[in-house]
């Protein structure tokens, strides 16, 4: 009787405490994340490298090794070079404005004023809106005939015959090289500003109020407090905002794809759109993969640099 009662207890013990073992549980809980990274990041990344070194196209899917031929060829095209330069120009200028404007907005929203919550909610809207819908909205704003900006400029006498911006009645934003670039940058700023503002707002809120009071008693005025106290203290979190902004903007294809489709001609192409037009639209998978791979080292370096500088200035 006693023997029979003991045996099941013993077998039970072996598995009963399995969930208490950290080595087992740890691996179990990590497994989905590892699978996710392998299947959805690692495999496509490996395939992109393989494609970029081969002559694969939509029509001929056999992988024949061609070395760096694809890279040599795309580097020689003006479209690619333009896309590369545009990617940098759009990303850097947009992020410059995002950081400046986010600082201003965060300082404003940090103060108490009537309607603050409403205003805060509105500022978040661009981030909560799907980027494609937002861009379509901007497409209407920049419309060649019905642009509300043109209408306002006409009403205040800046656009039309015999005016500063005339004589045409429309600026045709997306049809002109510089204006199209400006339009793309504006949409990117509009898109990234909410996130950066909220991150900076969190940074400002984390500063001990005593420090600001102390600086005031110490005789500092607004700008000195901002430059010498607030900015250095929110620098780590600001570099996180910048990192997100740089990576999101650099790797984004929706804005250019919906707003200008890279036009006029190819003047507003960026790396992601050019990779798509080349590889998917044009069917040249190997060259498309080579274009897309240009994003990788740049994003990697940006990420390492900013994370490192954030760590260096970490304040505890």
């Amino acid at each position, binding site marked *: 009787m006693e023997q029979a009662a003991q045996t099941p207890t013993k077998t039970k013990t072996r598995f009963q405490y399995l969930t208490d073992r950290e080595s087992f549980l740890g691996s179990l809980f990590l497994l989905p994340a590892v699978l996710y990274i392998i299947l959805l990041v690692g495999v496509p990344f490996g395939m992109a490298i393989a494609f970029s070194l081969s002559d694969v196209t939509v029509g001929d899917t056999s992988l024949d090794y061609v070395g760096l031929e694809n890279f040599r060829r795309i580097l020689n095209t003006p479209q690619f070079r333009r896309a590369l330069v545009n990617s940098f120009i759009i990303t850097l200028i947009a992020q410059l404005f995002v950081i400046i404007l986010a600082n201003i907005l965060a300082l404003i929203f940090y103060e108490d004023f009537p309607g603050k919550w409403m205003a805060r909610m509105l500022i978040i809207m661009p981030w909560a809106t799907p980027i494609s819908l937002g861009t379509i909205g901007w497409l209407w704003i920049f419309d060649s005939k019905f642009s509300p900006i043109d209408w306002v400029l006409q009403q205040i006498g800046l656009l039309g015959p015999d005016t500063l911006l005339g004589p045409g009645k429309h600026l045709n934003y997306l049809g002109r090289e510089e204006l199209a670039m400006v339009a793309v940058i504006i949409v990117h700023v509009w898109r990234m500003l909410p996130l950066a503002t909220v991150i900076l707002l969190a940074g400002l809120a984390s500063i001990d109020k*005593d420090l600001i009071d102390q600086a005031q008693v110490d005789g500092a005025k607004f700008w000195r407090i901002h430059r010498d106290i607030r900015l250095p203290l929110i620098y780590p979190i600001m570099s996180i905002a910048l990192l997100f902004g740089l990576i999101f903007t650099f790797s984004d294809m929706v804005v250019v794809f919906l707003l200008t489709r890279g036009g006029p001609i190819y003047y507003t192409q960026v790396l992601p759109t050019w990779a798509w037009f080349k590889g998917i639209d044009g069917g040249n998978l190997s060259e498309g993969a080579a274009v897309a791979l240009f994003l990788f080292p740049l994003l990697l370096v940006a990420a390492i640099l900013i994370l490192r500088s954030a760590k260096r200035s970490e*304040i505890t």
Partner: protein
Amino acid sequence: MDTVETINLKKHFAEVKAVDGVDLAIHEGEFFVILGPSGCGKTTLMRMIAGLEAPTEGDVVIGGVRVTDLPPRMREVAMVFQSYALYPHMTVFDNIGFPLKAKKMPKAERRSKVEAAAATLGVEQLLDRKPRQLSGGERQRVALCRAMVKEPRVLLLDEPLSNLDAKLRTAARAELEMFQRQLGITTIFVTHDQIEAMAMGDRILVMSAGKVMQVGAPQKIYHDPVNLFVATFLGSPTINLVEKGGCLIGFRPEHFLPRGSAVTDEELTTVSLNVFHVENLGADRLVYGELENAYEGKLITAKLPSIVTEVIEPGTTYDFVVETSNLKYFDKETGQKTEAIPL
């Protein structure tokens, strides 16, 4: 002329009257302590003097000039916060030099001033460190250094000792007091700790619920409290209260001794105390006993110094005495001090 004056100063946050009509006159070079329980408005009062809080009503005058509408930087005040508020990203040198940098003082002059201030408080070997590498006591000194370096007219200290551990606090208290006497700078010190207030203050302001209860020298406030609040707030163990008619009679535990050990020519009042419990703390013995008309039925405490060697056993009744001149009388309804009544 008084260095700091407040005239009917009020600060109301919606319904809460944090500071409710405070009139003050703090003399040149004085160590002035604002004492009160937490939430009594003492920090708000100090923040209004510093200019960090705008008064709802009333005025602040510093050095004879009305500064009510001036920002903190125009007031010639320096402040040390309870948290010390050292700028975490700056070295000790830059922390101390910050008020001078804000004044746009040239670098060479700034350096010599910072070094001189650091030497006065003995922190010169810490100048290259960051605040997080400092101990509590060092942080306090650096904060004090930063306050002194701009040579303010008034030094405001908001509970600067409460973040230190008990042993360090006593040492820092003496050090701070000596430092203040040496410089002769007008100092306002906010605290909830009556021992700090008694030990350091030239004068003490006792505050409760936004109002001034009493202002005076520590001994005056301790021995001649104007009302029940002041009498019970100061002193540990707290003052004994006995009810008689519409009057409360108070006497401090250290004035309450067994009859045999009272050697004095003064008139004595005798009561018999039914001893309930005795605590021997080494330096003192605390005797708790019952008295039939004790206020709110609380135990009566006697604090016997160790030189009183009489045997006191719980459960026994002894005759205790108090000098009649040490009895304090308060109106039971208003809590205000009243005339002595016949016992």
